[in-house]
């Protein structure tokens, strides 16, 4: 199984314990959002900005064009 390969790579003394670290990373790896470099606060600002942009586009589309 995949776990087997991961730990076989570091098969020395002191490693069996440390391989737990690699296993940790494995379970969080799953999500498409796991590498997102933002905090929740930053996301709030991003979402706010996007919504304003959306409103602006709609405004332009409805009233101007």
């Amino acid at each position: 199984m995949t776990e087997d390969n991961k730990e076989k790579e570091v098969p020395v003394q002191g490693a069996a314990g440390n391989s737990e670290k690699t296993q940790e990373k494995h379970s969080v790896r799953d999500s498409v959002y796991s590498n997102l470099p933002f905090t929740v606060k930053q996301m709030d600002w991003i979402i706010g900005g996007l919504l304003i942009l959306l409103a602006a586009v709609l405004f332009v589309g409805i009233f101007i064009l």
Partner: protein
Amino acid sequence: MEKTSKLNPGNLKEKLVNNALIIILGLMLVVVVIIEPGFLSIRNFSNILAQASTRGILALGIAALIILGGTDLSAGRILGCCAAISASLLQSTTYASRYYPQITKGLPLFVPLLVSIAVAVAFSIFNGFGVAFLNLHPFIITLGTQLIAFGSTCIYIDSQRGGAQPLSTLDSRYTNFVKGTFDVGFMQIPHLVVILLICAAVVYIIWNHTVLGKNMYALGGNIEAAKVSGINAKSNIMIIYIMAGVLYGIASFLEAARIGSVTTTVGFNYEFDAISGSIIGGVSFAGGIGTVPGVLVGVIMLQTINYSLTYLNVNPYLQYIVKGLLIIVAVAIDARKYLAKK
């Protein structure tokens, strides 16, 4: 369940952000109604729902795949292919340049429906096999299937006796069945809406009351935990792809008659609307999260925005921009939910 919502600033903000799109829709509707009070009519809503229904059925199929942790970029082209097949089998028997001149007596409606489902399921099995047994990323395999389906559609339409031409002039039984309405009192409820609700009800039962549904959520939520608990990933994934195929087949059958004329462009980018609608409705790309009502709400919302923009004579190209922004916002909100939980 969730923390009891006290109206303190933190909680309020959470709710505001998580439901931002629904709120935006509400505001937009208000604006539209102010500009054109005539928008608020049963007829308009009836139209919106009818337009949304085929997309909704498609979305119910794709949403299951997203909850499973995957996606399906081929749904639109599959719909196009099956719509072409449905239409070709149900053209008016008096139409001289129909696809199958050998059909002189109209086929019973359920026959082309079954053929449509069968073809859609065949494509879906191909997708499911790639994901479940070859461990390919759904993005990759469905990208390939998308092109195969499109090519097949083109060849099929091309192979008519009179060369490539739109598959039109459909059997009136067919169009009446799909585009007809139930007259209830003073309201006219489109058949399409009823069919959508029936499909939604069945899908709801599957997602929430069957082992398959629970397995779907488990595999999408944490595939390792699911496997260790004895859930067979391969067979469950396969069945869910097949289930999506059935829904695609139904949607294709309906869409062909709804439009009335099928060309190779039918179905183009339909999966985009289906996926956007699902995400807006609360289905998460992170996997394991999503509800049937949510999908319906999201799809209808998206359709409402499209419809109202057309109603207000907004430049149709701008509608693309709006749609694009919408899905970005929807994904941003989804990502934020994920980050907030961590």
